[in-house]
């Protein structure tokens, strides 16, 4: 997706309390053949990263567990400040992922997901486009909360196969669709999720971009809200 070179590299700041993890991410990002992402700051605490050049980064890559403390409650304030937050963690249980999404984070990457997802995700988020990594697709599939958005059968199928195979090309072959259509199904799910939970500037930007890209129509935003508000008859 979006593999064309960007006008300027996306800037990213990393908060992780393990130096070796920060080094690993730096290596991952530098290995992108298109050089789409530039790491401009990294540190062990949110404060130390935001005091320096990290304050203006396009994307903040945040390890969910810092010095043994889960920082889910910090996500909302970071998002309210207008930051695009990408959370990554080894805690990949659905409850944690859905809580992170609700708090306003742009997306969630599991530590078990490979480096290609990492770069693609950061680029998508920086341009306010949806990106659902496979582990997040799995969390959405097991969402049984009453406020969950209503997904179509095809959207659910695309999510399921994406979670299983981690390859949109394979999903497309299985469903007899083009890869672009598969991507559309999956991205629409993320847009639907942007309608629930805490509002944040990054969510508004995501919705605006989704309308511009023709992923949804402006009137659908209201429909999602009414689906989210009413009881969902689907199991």
């Amino acid at each position, binding site marked *: 997706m979006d593999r064309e070179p960007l006008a300027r590299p996306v800037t990213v700041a990393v908060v992780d309390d393990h130096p070796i993890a920060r080094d690993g991410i730096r290596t991952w990002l530098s290995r992108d053949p298109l050089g789409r992402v530039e790491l401009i700051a990294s540190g062990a605490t949110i404060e130390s990263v935001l005091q320096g050049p990290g304050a203006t980064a396009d994307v903040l890559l945040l390890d969910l567990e810092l010095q043994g403390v889960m920082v889910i409650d910090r996500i909302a304030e970071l998002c309210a400040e207008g930051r695009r937050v990408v959370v990554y963690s*080894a805690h*990949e249980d*659905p409850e944690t992922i859905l809580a992170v999404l609700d708090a306003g984070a742009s997306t969630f990457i599991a530590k*078990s997901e490979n480096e290609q997802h990492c770069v693609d995700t950061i680029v998508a988020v920086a341009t306010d486009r949806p990106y659902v990594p496979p582990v997040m697709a799995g969390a959405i*599939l097991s969402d049984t909360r009453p406020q969950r958005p209503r997904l179509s059968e095809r959207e659910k199928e695309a999510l399921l196969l994406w979670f*299983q*195979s981690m390859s949109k090309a394979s999903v497309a072959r299985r469903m007899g669709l083009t890869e672009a259509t598969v991507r559309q199904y999956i991205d629409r799910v993320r847009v639907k999720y942007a309608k629930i939970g805490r509002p944040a500037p990054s969510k508004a930007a995501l919705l605006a971009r989704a309308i511009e890209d023709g992923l949804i129509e402006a009137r659908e935003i209201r429909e999602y809200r009414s689906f989210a508000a009413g009881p969902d008859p689907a*199991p």
Partner: protein
Amino acid sequence: MTGDPAAYVAGRYERGSVVAAVVIAACWHVGYDLTATVGNWSVYRWPAAVAGAWLAYVGIGAVAARALLRTRRTAGAVWGLAGAALALDVIVLAACPPHEVLGPGDWPWGSIGWLAVLLFWWRRGPHELIVFLALNGVVMLAGMALNGVLDRISLARFLMVFVGSVTLQLGYSVATHALTSAARRAAQVSAARMEADAARQVAEQVHADRLRRYAQVRKAAAELLKALADGADPADPVLRRECATGAAWLRRLIAETDDVPDPLVHELRACAYDAERRGVVVSLLPRGAVPELPIETRRALTEAPLEALSRARSEARVTVVANAGEVVVSVVADADDFPIRRIEGVRVTKQREGDVLWIESRWPGR
């Protein structure tokens, strides 16, 4: 009897109390009421009416006891029967000459309370029983007024009999109901404690198993780190594979949050563990709660995925997505092809992508 121990224990107490109440009413009616009727036969104005009342008492008591012992439900038209019981009061009062009102010959007002105990047994709370006993008292006072026996001594006798019988009847009903609910609570508490004990034992086993695997992965990691420190080449493909296997293992341990694993996930986990020992990097991602499945269905669901997992050469991704009505198990692995057996009730899909085999089995198969 249901399997619920609380219901069983409470049921036994309840039945015992019901039987005792029926026996008390029957003994009272035969031992006291019958002797009083026979002994005062010549005193009554209309002895036949009193004999009829005695038999009607037996009839009402039989209906109430049958409802209690057979169907465990209140007899139909319970206030109709209660009204009939109060009518016995009036009949015998009318049959008694004034001097025998409050005497042994006027037996119903002391004993119909036992009928009410049986009739109102399954009612929630003692309110209706209290209303009935109060009405009984009012009927008796009215009878005394009509017969002109409201002197101090008569009133004192009335109070003595009234308080005595009400205390026995109401006390019995309230106390046995309290005993039954106490027995039910005790059984519930004991069942809950047994359940908690069982869950704790399983959780302890799971925990011990995790500690054992953690120790293993820790040992493996220590050996790898030592090798690296001693100058092993990080570019060595064998070393990198060992690192990847160890990391996948560690990640799985972190991701395991279930105290009591579902049998299907447990089976997959065991097989993933075997594959890891062969050096395969396995990600196992169960999502959603697996419903209780018949063992044949579970076997059918896991057969092809487990085969793929056992054939994986270096990498495998195992996912389970489940809700109450659907379970989907998938394995994506660099494995050789193998024939898929058709199994009733489960749909298995196979897709090959170059080196990679993608197996998915779904229940229910449509």
